[in-house]
């Protein structure tokens, strides 16, 4: 028996197949993972992501703490509500976790980190925070819902309190607004428009029920994985971990080298790696042959071997796609060893699908 979110009973009564995810009993799907995937690409779906770890950062040292902790630059969050995707690195520039940091107000920030890495993340945050005038508070009391899809905001807007509705609709991507205990961010993990809403238990349960009543399709972790893979979004523990730096995880864009005076953890190791030159890169693969690419399979390129980090079936493209770590010099054509057979694949630049549209050209 794992941990349960406050919505667990609702998942069961909605017919969810429950699976273990990082110690949590979570819905894999509610009947059809493929239908749920298409609902998010075509209209609107809602995910219970209350298992994710929310940590509020408060105190005069909040900004300085995050400037030390994060590889991206917290000072980009000039506006209240602004959000930032970043990795936190260890001293050898391995990725401890990826997260989103939001500026709540002044030196107060909210971090959302992965559920499966909760314990080590909290330990790491506490360790780094010891040098700063800052207080950390895990918000395990809150529900988090991701409402995603081209119709998500329009459908869910009437379900938000009056005090936050207009501001939520006006949010640019990666911005948030908070009022009356509600927190609404224009973020997600699907490659579609939508909101992630963090709120207390009772209104959270009501919002879930209201979403379903409004025709928003409940979606499980299965669809969440195929949607994020099509969107080319990395999954911690699969596409990167503590043995991989953001530079070889296609996350170089999240590292803020400027200002050079900002001494974030891992900077030295990362700088050394940059000077040595890259030896690996994370790319997208589209399988030309039939079959399904899976995590861990060998990728054979003209520049040496690589590995599939995330693979599966793309419901939108109706073929297998993958993220793979390959030698930096690898060219367009490669082969993937699937169940002892070599299958032809093509190296592409993710994302594969965004906003309902396939971005990879057929060859």
């Amino acid at each position, binding site marked *: 028996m794992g941990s349960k979110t406050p919505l667990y009973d609702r998942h069961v009564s909605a017919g969810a*197949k429950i699976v273990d995810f990082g110690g949590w009993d979570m819905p*894999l*799907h509610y009947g*059809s*993972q*493929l239908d749920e995937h298409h609902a998010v690409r075509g209209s609107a779906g809602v995910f219970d992501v209350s298992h994710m770890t929310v940590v509020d950062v408060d105190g005069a040292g909040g900004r300085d703490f995050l400037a030390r902790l994060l590889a991206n630059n917290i000072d980009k969050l000039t506006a209240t509500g602004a959000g930032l995707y970043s990795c936190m690195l260890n001293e050898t520039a391995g990725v401890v976790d990826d997260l989103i940091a939001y500026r709540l107000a002044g030196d107060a920030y909210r971090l959302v980190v992965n559920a499966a890495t909760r314990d080590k993340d909290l330990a790491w945050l506490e360790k780094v925070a010891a040098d700063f005038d800052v207080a950390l508070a895990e918000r395990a009391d809150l529900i988090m819902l991701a409402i995603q899809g081209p119709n998500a905001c329009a459908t869910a807007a009437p379900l938000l309190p009056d005090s936050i509705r207009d501001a939520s609709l006006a949010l640019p991507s990666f911005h948030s607004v908070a009022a009356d205990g509600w927190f609404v961010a224009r973020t997600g993990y699907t490659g579609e428009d939508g909101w992630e809403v963090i709120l207390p238990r009772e209104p959270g349960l009501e919002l879930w029920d209201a979403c379903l009543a409004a025709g928003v399709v409940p979606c499980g972790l*299965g669809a969440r994985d*195929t949607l994020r893979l099509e969107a080319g979004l990395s999954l911690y523990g699969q596409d990167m971990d503590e043995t991989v730096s953001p530079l070889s995880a296609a996350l170089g864009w999240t590292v803020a080298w400027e200002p050079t005076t900002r001494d974030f953890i891992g900077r030295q190791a990362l700088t050394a790696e940059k000077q040595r030159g890259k030896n690996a890169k994370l790319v997208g693969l589209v399988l030309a042959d*039939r*079959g*399904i690419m*899976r995590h861990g399979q060998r990728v054979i390129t003209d520049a040496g071997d690589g590995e599939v980090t995330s693979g*599966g*079936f793309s*419901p939108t493209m109706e073929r*297998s796609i993958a993220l793979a770590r390959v030698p930096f010099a690898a060219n367009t054509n490669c082969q993937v060893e699937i*169940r002892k057979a070599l299958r032809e694949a093509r190296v592409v630049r993710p994302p594969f699908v965004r906003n309902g549209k396939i971005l990879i050209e057929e060859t």
Partner: protein
Amino acid sequence: MSETPENLRYSQDHEWVRVEDDGSVVVGITDHAQESLGELVYVEVPEEEGELLKGDACAVVESVKAASDVYAPVSGKLAATNEALSDSPELVNSSPYDEGWLLRLDPSDPAELDELMDAGAYTQYLAESEA
């Protein structure tokens, strides 16, 4: 509760076998198997005719989650495969005992059929393996 038709024989690996009037056998995976695998997105059946021994991996069924081998429940010569599955692997989910059949064999040792379970034994086998 998954379906287990009375007229079929079952293997411990969750394949079913139907003996046809001409003595050939049709092979597929059970309702229980398709339900635990989840929605199928790819099915691979042998491209060439050949002899299969009982226990040989003779097909691959891949769901949104994972890939699984299908093992020949009896030995025999491959007579036909279900070509519809190449475009519609979901037939295995929607109709595991009919349109979702995988392959047809001419059994080389009909005695092997007797080693398979009947519907009652398979239902009990499922109950025991879930207990």
